[in-house]
């Protein structure tokens, strides 16, 4: 079989040709079809990008507000904008990192005093700490009613699978009483003192006097000083 040349033509070999791109002025039918089809598809391509839901779209294809573009009509001004934006980015990063550094420092200091922080995951409040220390977490209360609510959060006894109990009295809330506006939420810090508590996993609830529907499951992980529970 006669194999055609690498440029797709059966005629003379043209693959070595190269030079400045010559914009076509007189188009063949196939060239015109290529140009027209590509122009049509790219319009839909960009429209689709603009129409994507925010979670699936790269943010702000076009520069916002009067930021202009570096390839606008004022190169000097555009360059100045780039410089200003970079400076602002650097400043914002510096501020963010300063705050993160401060937060890390506080975290470290509290942990060195035996305080550990809990987390809420899928409606379960997990608290953890070493035996003899404390475990701390944050509880959010939501008032879905149409009137203001008062609530006094409290911890139930926390029980392990083998019958050991962390008594409710080991838990403290700060603030002890909450006032929650209609359709609003507020938080309280819960602290469990793990004085003589044996290592293990304990389960119970946070309940709230005044909010009868609130029952937040709690899992307390108590570790030995050096190992896992």
């Amino acid at each position: 079989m006669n194999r055609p040349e690498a440029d797709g033509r059966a005629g003379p070999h043209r693959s070595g040709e190269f030079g400045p791109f010559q914009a076509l002025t007189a188009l063949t039918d196939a060239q015109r079809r290529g140009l027209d089809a590509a122009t049509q598809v790219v319009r839909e391509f960009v429209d689709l990008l603009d129409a994507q839901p925010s979670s699936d779209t790269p943010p702000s294809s076009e520069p916002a507000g009067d930021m202009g573009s570096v390839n606008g009509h004022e190169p000097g001004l555009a360059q100045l904008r780039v410089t200003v934006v970079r400076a602002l980015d650097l400043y914002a990063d510096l501020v963010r990192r300063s705050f993160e550094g401060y937060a890390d420092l506080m975290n470290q200091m509290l942990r060195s005093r035996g305080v550990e922080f809990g987390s809420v995951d899928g409606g379960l409040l997990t608290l953890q700490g070493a035996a003899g220390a404390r475990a701390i977490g944050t509880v959010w209360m939501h008032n879905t009613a149409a009137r203001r609510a008062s609530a006094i959060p409290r911890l139930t006894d926390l029980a392990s699978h083998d019958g050991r109990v962390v008594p409710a009295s080991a838990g403290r809330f700060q603030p002890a009483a909450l006032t929650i506006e209609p359709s609003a939420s507020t938080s309280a810090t819960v602290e469990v003192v793990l004085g003589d508590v044996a290592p293990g996993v304990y389960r119970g609830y946070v309940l709230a006097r005044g909010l009868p529907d609130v029952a937040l499951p709690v899992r307390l992980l108590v570790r030995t000083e050096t190992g896992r529970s």
Partner: protein
Amino acid sequence: MTAGIELSDVEAMLGHFSSLTRDAMQRYLRDRAPGRYLYDLVRDYPSRTGKGIRPSLLLATCQAFGGSIDQALGPAVAIELAHNAFLIHDDIEDDSLQRRGRPTLHRVHGTPVAINVGDALAVLAMQPLRDGTPLGTRLSQRVSDEFIHMLTRTIEGQAIELGWRADNVVDLEPTDYLELIGQKTCWYTTVWPLRVGALIGSAGTASLDAMTRFGFYLGAAFQIRDDLLNLVGVEAEYGKELLGDIREGKRTLMLIHLLGSASVDERKSLVAFLARAGKHPDVPADGAPDIDEAAILELMVHHGSLEFAFQFGQGVATAAYESFHDAFADVPPSAARGFIEALIPYMLARVS
């Protein structure tokens, strides 16, 4: 304007940018355990030198917009790693025999191992984006968002192509082909590198829609040329087995043109061949004779499908030329800008 830039100049700049990317990539491809069935193989495809169009386009665009190489190297490494991940999985999906002149990974080590190596490369591709130090938090976040979006679009495009082959879809137009390659090729080959290069170089102030348009045209010209090379290239330069696209039943521009130009009997044979390629058993050819890859290429030559695709690509490249001048309208002249413009004729002239 590309006056003064030769094909060899473009290839030299591709080599320069690729070399920078490969050096930066090494820190993500270090020796570690398990080596024999994972990390030794993770380094295989990246070590097979490709053209490096994606990282080169990203780095050059960043430079053209006033940024530095250092700022863009992380994303350049990320796209090259992701590209290699795609290649491994594509080769499995297509059961390709060769990649960059050597046997494909799954042919040498088996499909399960190759899938896992592809997964590893896809995960490794995320790592360079996590080091946002050169960019700052805001730009890093935007680059990551762009990366996730690009991956999503690419995978969606690949799904459409696999679906066409699985369902033996044959009633297709050139616009269908352009929409497909817009998703599966352009996003990660040209659109993303251009958008992210401009994003980083301009510190987020450039018009990215203009980059998207130029990237689409440039990527389409790239893919059309790639499809032609698969049929009529020189295997040693092209690096993949010739006629592989026909064997796999890929809906290329030439195939779509042929489906619309063939006689009734030729079309019946062609549709039956495509059904077999798409793993449809027992597809009746309605009395039409069996046909093979070489005969299909003969038909393409006979019906002018290769010439059509070549000229169609020239039309697309004309659109790329216009959109380049829109996207880079006031970007000052530089070697990087000249290189990007020279990629338009390069896409039509390349032989590998």
